[in-house]
């Protein structure tokens, strides 16, 4: 997982995708995932994946790094795909495409939206305890990650990781994890005390203001809607869209995003 890097991209970017409003990006991501779920033929899914990659490029994000991040947690997908080899190669390829497209779309959403905006928006649908828990978890994560990284660096420098010394390595990591849990526990107590002094009464304030809907919202939203429409049509009529039509959509989309990218620079 690369939450720290994704958070940095979200906070530092100023692309068309970054300037789009949270509701429209969330809606577009939902449309991409809905297409992944109901889309069942290769050209549609391949074109959808390309559309997401084009959007990632338009957002000024490193496409290869995002692809790697989306592929890394794919062990389950890989096993699942290998288990389907009995039905030919097509099904495993479709499975991999579905998983990587959905993961890339989610990474694109979080990499172009500051966490307080996205959690504030998502949190509207949840009980307060979950919303506050989400905020607190996200904020605490970076503090603890920093502590863990320092610990691992110190451990490496002092020869704490040695090849073929499973129990010794586990003991060192385990003690580090133990220290971190104690640290986290103490910090949570202190955090509550500090929050109480500052007037915390069981309600954390999050951002409920988002960017207004603008022209920046349209390209990604429209492209996602086109693919969803095609997936629904294909499902109902059992007719698949032609390769030419997908190529045309992708060319128009790429052109639009590139123009916006240079214009907004």
């Amino acid at each position, binding site marked *: 997982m690369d939450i720290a890097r994704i958070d940095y991209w979200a906070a530092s970017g100023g692309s068309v995708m970054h300037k789009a409003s949270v509701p429209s990006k969330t809606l577009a991501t939902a449309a991409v995932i809905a297409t992944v779920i109901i889309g069942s033929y290769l050209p549609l899914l391949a074109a959808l994946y390309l559309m997401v990659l084009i959007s990632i490029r338009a957002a000024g994000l490193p496409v290869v790094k995002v692809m790697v991040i989306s592929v890394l947690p794919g062990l389950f997908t890989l096993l699942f795909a290998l288990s389907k080899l009995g039905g030919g190669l097509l099904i495993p390829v479709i499975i991999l495409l579905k998983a990587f497209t959905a993961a890339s779309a989610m990474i694109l959403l979080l990499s172009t939206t500051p966490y307080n905006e996205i959690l504030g928006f998502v949190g509207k649908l949840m009980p307060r305890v979950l919303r506050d*828990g989400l905020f607190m978890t996200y904020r605490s994560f970076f503090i603890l990650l920093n502590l863990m990284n320092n610990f691992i660096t110190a451990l490496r420098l002092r020869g704490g990781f040695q090849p073929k010394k499973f129990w010794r390595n586990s003991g060192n990591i385990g003690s580090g994890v133990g220290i971190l849990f104690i640290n986290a526990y103490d910090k949570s107590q202190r955090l509550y005390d500090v929050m109480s002094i500052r007037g915390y009464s069981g309600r954390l304030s999050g951002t409920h203001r988002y960017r207004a809907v603008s022209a920046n919202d349209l390209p990604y939203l429209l492209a996602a809607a086109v693919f969803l429409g095609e997936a629904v049509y294909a499902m109902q009529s059992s007719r698949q869209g032609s390769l030419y039509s997908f190529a045309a959509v992708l060319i128009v989309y790429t052109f639009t995003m590139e123009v916006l990218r240079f214009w907004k620079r």
Partner: protein
Amino acid sequence: MSHLHIPDGLLPVWLWVAGLAAAAIAVGFSLFMLRKVDLRKKIPLLGMMSAMMLVGMSIEVVPYHLNLSVITGIILGPWLAMVASLIVNLLMSLVGHGGVTVVGLNTLVIGFEGVMGYILFSIFRKALKPALSAAAATFLTLFMSTCLMLLIVFLGNIDLNIASTSELREVMESTPAGFAKHIIYSGGGFNLKFFAIASFAMGLIGWTIESAVTAFAVGFIDKVKPDIIGRRS
């Protein structure tokens, strides 16, 4: 290995919708059980412990990453652990680590680890030292959660259209072995046997690492701050 995050688009809609409903019920029940607890005080702890799970998942130890769901369950207790597992899965789905639609199913698997880890640890520690209890509880819990994950995958490969036909009825009315063979190799060429063997083979390495790390961590906490794991110093 139990910590396999199911991505979007692989499982049938009925299954992930059922998963979302089941997770909502499980988390709702957990919150109901916590109704007498002052949750204001627990929010920072909940956040920190959920963040610890995320930190554990961020650190790659060999190609496997730690889970820390059992130790989180031991510290938070079963009800808060279930809430924490939903928070962790929601955040992970936002970074493409597991699907959004399958947050419910993933929450059930990770939440199960927290709850079962807490229960087994409570049982084992009556007879064993905390570190050993934690190791045994972690290993058993991860084995069971891998079985749960396999059950989910198996359910996802049952073709509901076939289930209403006479073909399946005939198979079900035949020998148990015939029925077992039918369900293992069903669902568009899906080989559940291969999937199960691969999951258990890789899982064994993961369970061992996780159990060792959890045991050392709990042993350390028991020496330094035992009240965190429920023992008064």
